[in-house]
């Protein structure tokens, strides 16, 4: 029986400029803290789903990441967030799209999975359920950072507005995520994002798309993506990785291969973290930069680029 494994990422983007070293250190601190919190929970008996939620909650609470606090703003200057969680047992899943005022969207996704017969709730319906389910609600201002404001101002200053490759071109990074195996060998994945700066109101990216930004099946493995959302969706990235692993391909190879296929088909770039059902991991990225951390056999490893 493989032991507990936690793999988290803080978003993929292009290599940031040198004077953002402070942010890089903050990202590394964030992913290491999230991985550690999740791993400790696993060792204390938490399920993979609990730990996946814990990891992403941590990342959502760190303003340096584009999720929860620190989420990028839509064209109207608001925070609309997407998130999802998937349980490798029975393909249970919960997801939320374009929700406002929720401090931890991944926890709302979990409530959707556990308390409703649905998989995906969006917009005002999602906010309504958030109120009913008891997740913490906050004024929008609490989620907005100076960095997010500046990123929006920059997009608005461009002659043609948002660019489809903006997510990986932005100095700032995208979606956060986690892939976890618990001590019983169960897998779970979680994902959360504020999306692209200057996106249309109501735009939903790959994160809450089961099979796009996230997938998890105890029989095969788990994959969570970050990067150019529309490209990830159109090529069903997470799904492809799971499919490649089901043929026996190792997680690293499956992730790299699926990313290359995506790049060739639709020119999009992304990063993914992958686990197979034996606890082997893959950390893959062709954008040049992705903060990540892994805890396995009590050893913590981390980095700012793939592998």
């Amino acid at each position, binding site marked *: 029986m493989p032991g507990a494994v936690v793999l988290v990422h803080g978003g993929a983007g292009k290599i940031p400029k040198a004077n953002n070293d402070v942010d890089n250190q903050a990202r590394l601190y964030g992913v290491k803290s999230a991985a550690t919190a999740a791993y400790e929970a696993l060792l204390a008996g938490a399920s993979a789903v609990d730990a996946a939620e814990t990891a992403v909650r941590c990342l959502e609470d760190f303003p340096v990441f584009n999720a929860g606090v620190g989420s990028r703003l839509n064209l109207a200057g608001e925070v609309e967030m997407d998130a999802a969680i998937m349980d490798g047992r*029975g*393909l249970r899943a919960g997801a939320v799209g374009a929700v406002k005022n929720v401090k931890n969207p991944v926890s709302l996704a979990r409530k959707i999975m556990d308390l409703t017969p*649905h998989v*995906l709730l969006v917009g005002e319906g999602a906010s309504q*359920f958030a109120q009913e389910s008891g997740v913490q609600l906050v004024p929008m201002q609490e989620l907005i950072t100076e960095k997010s404001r500046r990123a929006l101002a920059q997009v608005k200053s461009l002659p043609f507005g948002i660019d489809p490759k903006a997510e990986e071109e932005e100095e700032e990074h995208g979606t956060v995520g986690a892939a976890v195996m618990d001590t019983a060998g169960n897998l779970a994945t979680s994902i959360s994002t504020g999306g692209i700066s200057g996106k249309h109101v109501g*735009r939903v990216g790959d994160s809450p798309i089961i099979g796009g930004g996230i997938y998890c099946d105890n029989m095969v493995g788990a994959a969570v993506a970050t990067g150019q959302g529309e490209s990830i*969706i159109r090529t*069903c990235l997470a799904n492809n990785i799971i499919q490649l692993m089901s043929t026996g391909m190792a997680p690293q190879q499956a992730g790299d291969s699926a990313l290359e296929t995506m790049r060739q088909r639709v020119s999009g770039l992304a990063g993914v973290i992958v686990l197979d059902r034996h606890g082997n991991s893959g950390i893959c990225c062709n954008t040049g930069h992705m903060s990540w951390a892994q805890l396995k056999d009590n050893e913590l490893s981390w980095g700012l680029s793939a592998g």
Partner: protein
Amino acid sequence: MPTEPVIIVHGGAVSGVHTYGSSEARVLGVQAAALAGWEKLKETGCALDAVEVAVCSLEDNPTFDAGTGSVLNQAGEIEMDAIIMDGKNLDTGAIACVQNIKNPVKLARKVMENTHHCLLVGKGANLFAEKVGISTVPLEELVTEISRQKLELCNGSYEDRCKHAFKASNVKKCVKHSDGEHDTVGAVAIDVHGNMAAATSTGGITAKMVGRVGDSPVIGAGCYCDNVSGGVSCTGHGESIMKVTLASRITMYIEEGLSAQEAAEKALDYMFNKTEGAGGVIAVSKTGEVGVHFTTGFMSWAFVKSGKLHYGWIPGENHTRAVE
């Protein structure tokens, strides 16, 4: 060498004998939609235009659960989802939980062509509709008496209703609830240039939670289309379809060498084994082969190929007649 064009549509996979509407209305509806799509294929030679026209025809027909005739959510309102996908470049446009517009598939196409995004939801989708000149209609124009009655007669939990509405035909009947749950519509086409397109549109499931999105506008779940493999549109229990990414599963099986029919059957089997959910699919492979399969009691479907219109409703049924 030009490809032989094909267009196929479905009007929803459901169980139970219908006390609402008639099977005849459904079969006539899918025939009309397939023929409308076929005319468009002949006119413009464009699969994308053909699936849009076919789905619009189904949306405008109050018999089906899409556009006019959409079922009501828990709050008594209509929230619609739709998607359109171009197999050439995997360009996609989708909308979810949009309100008070007549043809959601048209708005989905605008998302694909006028934005860099794939999916707009809720109020944002409606704002975008205004921006691109798609007018709103009063809710009353989309609501039918049947949709209202279904909401009123809804018993039990959503799960129970789904088990009843979409139960697999090999599962023991559940006796409790109002039957005749309508469903999603969709279309898949391949044109003379070998380009493929697919589209799906729905009002969802009666008494769903406000903001609930099913499989229909989710790429890879309710719809997928890729010139290198094929195009698919699905119908049935949305949550189950999402969990197994049904549409892209079928295109994946086709890519592995299965025929469109074999892929459809294998994928629905897989879905039932993993989730106990049932549904129906239509598929066209890149070579123009057609697949139709459903694990519920009934599914209205029709396709035009090689000068013939094929259609059916009951499992195993395949009526044909000549078309120009």
